[in-house]
C-alpha cells in the first residue's frame, strides 16, 4: 500500500469553536484582511444610508465630475464627484446596502434552492431527477434578459422580483455542481455503511453527503457574487429592480461608463468596490474550505516552517 503511516497530528487542547476559528483566521493573513474588509463593507451597508443619506444624494452642480484626490470641498470628495456633482465615496457607502442586499439574497437563494434540488436529483435518480435536470437545462438555455423582461411584464418591477430573476438564472450552476458531486459521494463506502446502520435518507443526505458538497458550493457562490452584482446593474438599467435615486455599485458603473474618457473615476471606484468584495469573499471562502476540512485544517493550525 502506498499510504505511508503518518504520525498523528498533535491534538490542541479543546477551545471554544469561536476562539479556535479566530486563531485559525489569524494564521491566514490574507483571509484575515479579507474578513476585516468584509466587516467594514457590512457596517457600511447597515449604517451607511442612515448616516450619509443626505450627503450622498445632495446635488452640487459646481462640483460636476470633480476629479479625485482633493479634499478642499471636504473629505467626502476624496474620490471625486459624479456627473451631478454628488460625492462618490459616500455614494459607494450608501450603495453597499442595496448592492450587497440584492446580491446576497440572490446568491443565497440560488445556492440553497439549487443545492437542495441538486441533492435530490443526485441521490434519488428516477423521474424526479430527470425533471430537475431538464429544468436546469431550460433555464440555462433561456437568455436571462428575456426572462427578466417576462418577469417585468408579468410582475411589478420590485427588488424582490429582481432577486428572484437573478436567483433563478444562476440556479443551474448549483444544481449541476451538486448533482455531479452527489453522484460520486453516494457510492462511497461510508454511505453504504450508514445505510446498513439503518440511517434514513434525510440523515444520509444531511450528515454524509451535504457536508462534503457545501464547501464546493460556497466557492462557486463567492465567484458568482461578482457576476450577480453586474447582472443586477444590467437589469436595473432595463428598468426592473433598483431605480434612481436609489443606487447600487453596478448602477454607478453603468452610469459612469458614458464618462470613461473624461472622468474615469465615476466607474473606477464602484468597480473597485465590486472587485475587492469578490476577491475578499473568494479569499475567505478558501479559508473556510480549509478550516472546515479536518484533513486540511492542520495547514491553519501549525506555524509556518521553512523547508531546507
Amino acid at each position: 500500500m502506498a499510504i505511508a503511516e503518518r504520525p498523528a497530528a498533535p491534538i490542541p487542547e479543546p477551545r471554544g469553536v469561536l476562539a479556535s476559528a479566530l486563531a485559525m483566521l489569524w494564521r491566514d493573513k490574507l483571509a484575515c484582511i479579507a474578513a476585516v474588509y468584509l466587516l467594514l463593507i457590512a457596517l457600511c451597508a447597515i449604517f451607511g444610508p442612515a448616516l450619509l443619506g443626505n450627503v450622498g444624494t445632495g446635488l452640487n452642480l459646481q462640483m460636476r465630475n470633480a476629479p479625485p484626490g482633493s479634499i478642499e470641498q471636504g473629505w467626502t470628495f476624496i474620490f471625486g464627484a459624479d456627473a451631478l456633482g454628488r460625492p462618490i465615496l459616500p455614494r459607494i457607502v450608501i450603495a453597499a446596502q442595496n448592492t450587497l442586499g440584492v446580491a446576497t439574497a440572490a446568491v443565497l437563494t440560488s445556492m440553497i434552492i439549487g443545492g437542495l434540488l441538486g441533492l435530490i436529483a443526485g441521490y434519488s435518480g428516477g423521474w424526479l431527477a430527470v425533471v430537475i435536470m431538464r429544468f436546469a437545462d431550460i433555464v440555462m438555455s433561456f437568455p436571462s434578459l428575456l426572462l427578466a423582461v417576462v418577469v417585468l411584464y408579468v410582475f411589478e418591477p420590485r427588488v424582490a422580483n429582481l432577486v428572484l430573476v437573478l436567483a433563478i438564472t444562476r440556479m443551474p450552476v448549483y444544481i449541476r455542481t451538486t448533482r455531479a458531486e452527489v453522484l460520486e459521494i453516494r457510492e462511497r463506502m461510508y454511505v453504504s455503511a450508514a445505510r446498513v446502520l439503518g440511517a434514513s435518507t434525510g440523515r444520509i443526505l444531511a450528515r454524509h453527503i451535504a457536508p462534503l458538497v457545501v464547501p464546493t458550493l460556497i466557492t462557486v457562490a463567492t465567484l458568482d457574487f461578482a457576476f450577480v452584482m453586474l447582472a443586477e446593474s444590467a437589469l436595473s438599467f432595463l428598468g426592473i429592480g433598483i431605480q434612481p435615486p436609489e443606487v447600487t455599485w453596478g448602477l454607478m458603473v453603468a452610469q459612469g461608463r458614458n464618462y470613461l474618457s473624461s472622468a474615469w473615476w465615476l466607474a473606477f471606484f464602484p468597480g473597485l468596490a465590486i472587485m475587492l468584495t469578490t476577491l475578499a469573499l473568494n479569499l475567505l471562502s478558501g479559508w473556510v474550505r480549509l478550516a472546515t476540512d479536518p484533513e486540511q485544517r492542520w495547514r491553519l493550525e501549525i506555524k509556518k516552517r521553512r523547508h531546507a
Partner: protein
Amino acid sequence: MPDPHHLLEVRGLAVEFHTAQGTVHALAGVDYHLDRGETLAILGESGSGKSVSASAIMNILDVPPGYITGGEILLEGKNLLEMSAAERRRINGERIAMIFQDPLAHLNPVYSAGFQIEEALRAHKSMSARDARSRAITLLEHVGIPDPARRIDDYPHQFSGGQRQRVMIAMALALRPDVLIADEPTTALDVTVQAQILELLKQLQAETGMGLLLITHDLGVVADVADRVVVMHRGRIGEGGSVRDVFKAPSQDYTRRLLAAIPGRGPHDPARAPRADAPLLEVRELCKHFPVTAGLMRRETGEVVRALDGVSFEVGAGETLGIVGESGSGKSTLARTLLRLEQPTSGEARFHGDRIFALDAERLRAFRRAFQVVFQDPFASLNPRMTVLDIVSEPWAIHKGVLPRARWRDKAAELLERVGMESSHLRRYPHQFSGGQRQRIAIARALALEPELIICDEAVSALDVSIQAQVIELLKELRDALGLSYLFIAHDLAVVRDLADRVAVMQRGKIVELGTCEQIFERPEHPYTRTLLAASPEPDPDVQTERRRRRAASFAA
C-alpha cells in the same frame, strides 16, 4: 572475467520527506545489491520505505517533499545520482524498467495496448512503425496474451487484470532491460493469476538473464520466487540473506514477528458446533442477475450476468462461516444483497426465521440492529468529516432509544477500549489513524448496536500481515466474549483458515464446495478448491521449491 561491479548497487541511500508533521526519514542509509539473473526481494509492510528506493532508482521520487540526502545508486559501478536528467531518461526503460501494482492505473486508457508498447520501443530506438508493431506482437505473444495479432489493438479496459499486468510486463521488457523492478506486481491479482504472473516473470528472467528487484509485502511471494531477501522496517534494512536463511533462522525480532503473523499456519481449531439447533441465518437458492446493457440508450440485451446463481447456506448462532472466492465470484454481491443494499432476483434469506427481503420498515430497523458489517477499505468506510465519537455513536443517533445521549461518550470510549484503542482518540478524525486503527474503529461502530451477526467483507484484506493478525485476533476475542456470528468474506484462503468454522468456496456465483475448515483445507474435493489451494503461495521456500519442481515435472510429462 567476472564483472568487478554488481549490476545494481544501492549504498547508504538516505531519503527524507519534509512534511507538515516534521521530517520523515523514509530511508536511513540503505544498502543492497543485485546481480545478473538474480531475484532480490525487498520485503516490508506499508510505510517501511520499501518502494522509496525504487523511486530513487527510477528518478521518479517526488521532489519536494522528498529529498535524497545521501548515498549512491550504482549501475555497473556508475553513480546514477551524478548523471544528468537526459542520461537518466536514457537508462530508464532501456537498462532499468519497472512494473507497478495496479496496471489499470498505469496504462493510459485512451491508447491501445499495442500503441503503448510501440511507444516504449520507439522512444528509445529509431524504428519503423511496421517493425515496432511486429515486435509488439511478438512481445505480447511472449508474455502469454492469446491471439496477440488481434488483441494488439484492444484498449486496457478490454483486458482482464492478469492480462493487463502481462501487457505492462511486455512494455517493460520491450527494450530487454538489465534490471526489472517489480513493485507489488501481483498484489491486485487473484491467487491463481498471481501464480501465473510469477511463473512468467521467472521464465522471462531465465531467458534474458535480467536482474529482478521484487518489492512486496507478501512472504509467500518472496518464498516462491526470490533468491535473496532484505527485510525493511522503518526505513532501515533489518536483515538480509538467502530466502532460506531468513525464513528458517531469522536473526531479528522484527522478522520473527513478521513470520509469526503469517495467517493460516497453526493447527486447525476444532470446528465449534453452533449453539442452537435453528440456524441464525438461512439462505436458500439466492440469485442476483444484472442485466447486460448495450449502446447509448442502455438498451437491455436480454443477456444477464449471474452474479449469484442459486446460493444456499446456513450460519448457526455463534458460528463463523468463511466465504472464499476470487474476484468476480459474487462474494461481495452476496454481502450487499444480504445487507439489503441490492434487491435479489430470486431466492430467499431468513434471519431468525424472518424473511429478510420481505421485512417492513419497522422490522427492517430491528434487523439492521442485529445484522452489521465491516467493509474492506478502512480508508473509505469512515466519513472523513466526522470525529471518531460521531462515527461510533452514529448507530445510537439512528436507533433512538437504544442509549440516552448523555451516555454516548462513555459507551463510545468503552467500545474503543474494547477494540484496543484509547478513549482519548474520540476527538480525532479518521485520517489521523493508520489502516489497522481505522478498521478497529469500523468494528467498534459495528459493535455499537450489539449485533448478533457481522458480515466482514474482505475486512482484513487491505491490511499488513502483522496488523491483519491483530485484527483477526480481535475478531476472535469478540466472537468468544460476545457470542457473535461472522460471515467472513475473503479472497485469501489463509486468513479464512484462522477464523472460520466452516468454509464455502465460491466460483462464478455458485458455491462449489462447503465444508468444515479442516475438510476444505486438508481434503478438498472440488477441482477449483484444489486449484485455489495450490496457487496460494506458502511462505516456506522449501515447500515452494518442491511445488515448482512438481509443476515442472508435470509439464515435462
